[in-house]
């Protein structure tokens, strides 16, 4: 970056993409500490409105930035700030998973992806808000209050990773980490006008990701551009011996794919199940335009039916709560976190019960009860067992589809951002926000959301979802990059109101 391109003041530093930021630091145009301070200042200026962060780690961020400036770490994202979803454990830094039950807990270890980001010189600014234990689609189920959508502070930023997406959308960080169990990276990306990718299951280590549903959870990148997402994905991805379910193979060449926008001859399948009733007309309009743009770029468009996708939501709401009911059993006041009712007379079981009653919110309790029921003797076959069969059928739908096409596409979520309070008391309405994102989690393949414009009916961002076969993550980056280039949506946030 030459002198004339140098940002006029530090306020402009926060508007750079991750790739630009890293390049500026590497060129010596700006220091990593200056970049970190600019973002910390931005957080101080706007986050009381957005409430993206639960904890800002100023000291840790500046210490890491100094290491970058001292030349101790290099790499394509060295010195780039990042907002970390509070479901990823960080040594010595509070980690709550959005729950009261973990309030005050400072983990004694770092997640694998935290180690990898530190080694890559990424500067973690702090921990971001989320629905409690990643259960929700609006970030309203956080025990620490909701996050607001930077496009309209009266609306939700989606969820569960609303904090990371809102932070990225409001220029508090160019990068974020989310986790996606049924859409928790992609749906917030869609409604905040940002990019969010769920890698292939097993493509990114889960060691240190506080489990919601082990067979579905996957960490992934949040960013303002497809390239930035790919760069971050490349840093955190790859085999981890600490995670048995981690894939022992190289990460697909996603960065090259994101730099290319080449879709000539690519066969793109439009999922016929994801349209019609319940879909906001403006969302479908923008989606159709994006499909038309891809066709114009030389892609071949095919309509593909995935009949079992209709059963994905109910199957998901048996499998995920079943695993959650077991994963969340460890929060019992015995070793860490909240402890309630330990008056010296109460037995361990009473303390456990009182703590869990006080420490978990309603949505978490709802899912624990649901999952406990689904795994119970006499009901297991009808619920958990049946859901696993549906999961197999959905995977077969994907397999059959990928014999015809290279990727599948759909709207990321049926509507644009909904208002705070609108669905919080209506679980079914809330669950529908993940209608289009859940199939990829059940299948295990990668999926990504890229902005495809603003809905004409409300002026809010619309997300375009690209789903690819297992371990073909590069395909979704290629298609997403084409959408971004064709529609110019890497600049969509310029249309957001000034905070």
């Amino acid at each position, binding site marked *: 970056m030459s002198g004339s391109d140098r940002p006029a003041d530090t306020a402009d530093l926060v508007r750079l993409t991750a790739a630009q930021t890293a390049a500026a630091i590497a060129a010596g145009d700006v220091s990593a500490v200056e970049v970190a301070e600019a973002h910390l200042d931005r957080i101080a200026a706007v986050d009381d409105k957005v409430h993206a962060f639960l904890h800002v780690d100023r000291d840790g961020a500046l210490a890491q930035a100094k290491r970058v400036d001292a030349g101790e770490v290099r790499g394509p994202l060295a010195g780039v700030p990042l907002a970390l979803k509070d479901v990823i454990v960080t040594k010595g830094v509070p980690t709550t998973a959005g729950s009261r039950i973990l309030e005050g807990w400072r983990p004694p*270890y770092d997640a694998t992806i935290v180690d990898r980001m530190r080694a890559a010189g990424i500067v973690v600014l702090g921990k971001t808000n989320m629905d409690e234990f990643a259960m929700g689609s609006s970030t309203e189920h956080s025990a620490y209050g909701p996050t607001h959508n930077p496009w309209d502070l009266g609306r939700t930023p989606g969820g569960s990773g609303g904090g990371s997406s809102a932070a990225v959308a409001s220029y508090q960080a160019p990068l974020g980490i989310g986790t996606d169990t049924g859409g928790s990276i992609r749906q917030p990306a869609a409604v905040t006008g940002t990019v969010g990718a769920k890698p292939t299951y097993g493509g990114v280590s889960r060691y240190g990701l506080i489990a919601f549903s082990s067979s579905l959870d996957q960490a992934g990148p949040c960013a303002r551009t497809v390239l930035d997402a790919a760069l971050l994905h490349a840093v955190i991805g790859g085999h981890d011996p600490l*995670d*048995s379910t981690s894939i022992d193979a190289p990460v697909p060449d996603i960065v090259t794919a994101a730099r290319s926008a080449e879709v000539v001859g690519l066969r793109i399948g439009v999922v016929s199940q994801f349209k019609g009733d319940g879909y906001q007309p403006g969302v479908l309009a923008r989606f159709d335009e994006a499909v038309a743009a891809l066709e114009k770029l030389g892609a071949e468009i095919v309509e593909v039916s995935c009949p079992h996708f209709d059963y994905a939501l109910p199957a998901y709401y048996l499998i995920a709560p079943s695993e959650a009911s077991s994963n969340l059993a*460890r929060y*019992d006041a015995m070793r860490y976190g909240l402890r309630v009712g330990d008056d010296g007379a109460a037995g361990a079981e009473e303390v456990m019960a009182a703590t869990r009653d006080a420490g978990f919110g309603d949505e978490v309790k709802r899912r624990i009860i649901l999952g406990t029921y689904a*795994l119970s003797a006499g009901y297991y076959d009808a619920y958990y067992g049946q859901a696993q069969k549906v999961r197999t059928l959905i995977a077969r739908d994907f397999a059959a589809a990928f014999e015809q096409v290279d990727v599948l596409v759909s709207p990321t979520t049926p509507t644009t951002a909904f208002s705070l309070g609108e669905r919080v008391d209506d679980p079914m309405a809330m669950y529908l926000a993940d209608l289009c994102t859940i199939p990829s989690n059940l299948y295990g393949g990668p999926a990504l959301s890229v902005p495809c414009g603003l809905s004409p009916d409300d002026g809010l961002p619309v997300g375009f979802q690209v789903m690819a076969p297992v371990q073909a993550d590069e395909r979704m980056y290629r298609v997403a990059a084409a959408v971004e280039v064709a529609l110019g949506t890497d600049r969509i946030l310029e249309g957001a109101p000034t905070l």
Partner: protein
Amino acid sequence: MTTTTPATSFGPNSYEGTLERYDAVLGLETHVELGTATKLFCGCSTVFGAEPNTQVCPVCLGLPGSLPVTNAKAIDYTVRIGLALNCSIASWCRFARKNYFYPDMPKNYQVSQYDEPLCVDGYLDVPVPGRAETYRVLIERVHLEEDTGKSLHVGGATGRIHGATHSLVDYNRAGIPLVEIVTRPLVGTGPDAAAIARAYVTELRDLLRGLGVSDVRMEQGSLRCDVNVSLMPRGSSEFGTRSETKNVNSLRSVERAVRFEVERQGAVLDAGDRVVQETRHFHEDSGTTSSGRSKEEAQDYRYFPEPDLVPLAPDAAWVEQLRAELPEPPGAQRARFAEANGFATLDIEQMTNAGVLDLVAETIAAGAPPAKARGWWLGYLVGRANEAGVEASELAITAAQVARISALEDDGTLTNKLARQVADAVIAGEGEPDAVIDAHGWKVAGEDELVAAVDAAIAGQPDAAEKVRGGNQGAVGPLVGAVMKATGGSADAKRARELILERLTG
């Protein structure tokens, strides 16, 4: 036949009497802590006896975000056990989560195996004292799971949770690999139910030790048994309601627990009551069991496949390689041992039954002649163990110490009586044999001391001396007694007798 169980009356409510009217059906679930250097799902040490909560990490503490990675050695050991027990090895199976809340379980679920065990359908042929034929125990399954932590309940009288004021938890044990070996119901045991239960656990222990997969120390809990017992009227084929006696931690206790449950359940059934299906606790001191939690309301463990672990798929060629590496089974090992040391089958049976076969072998290895080694254990130390109410292996004396004492006896340094005194002193914790001898000044009286004592005895008992002179050899006894008394028992009685006869008749 068993030397370790106190004799009971042979009345109608005795164990023997009960088994004349009822058939016992047994089930044994044996938990074996594997001897891997590290835990099942993390790299923490498994060494026994460390300071509480020093061998822990995020994984075995179940901290949020942590994930298990299976220890390949534990799979290897489990497959070896399955093969040695003649099981089929699954070509594909999964771990499962067993969900229940307990403070010593870090995740409030235990990673175990449920409907897909690693090894199934095997058997173990067990030699039973007094039976010409071995008894074939059918093995239903062998599976791998993680151990829990250990609770210490403080402030109560019993050490159990009931009545305790607080509890301490040590997670060092949490995550240690545990193999569970489950038998099919043992039927047709007739009057030998308790003996067969003990013989099975003994044989299993020897087999596991031979495999080198566990140190199988029952007193440290690395081998522990749950004993299921039910009774049905003689000739019936419909099993009765069973009790499950937990954590029976010695061979002797296995036998006693079966005996007690047979007697108890017989009395319940005779009174026209029904046996309650429940967990029971075994009390080492009294040899009795008492009611634990009732299992009438069966706990629902909500098993489901562990999603954090990939399925196990042992490679067939690897399994065959392990099969080829199996060591000699305990029966063949015993036959070879008998042959090498000139023992008869009955000797082996007696030593096995008394639980001293390994101790005898170790004593021989430490240099003692086989007959002496056998004599020391069977002829003396087993009796001491019985008096103390412990297993011979739990006596505080090592095979090497026994061999040393035996050698000192053989070279005339100690009389047999002194040698036993030395053994007792070693067991009492007084130190090594040589140190004990020095401390007490125990040694065979020297010739000079002996001659002086003999002269003093003759002078002191002129009447007895006269009788001996007169040819009454039976009168020599009191004189020898006086010599022994004068030398504090350290005299060689045979030599004293020779000297007295020399003096009076020579």
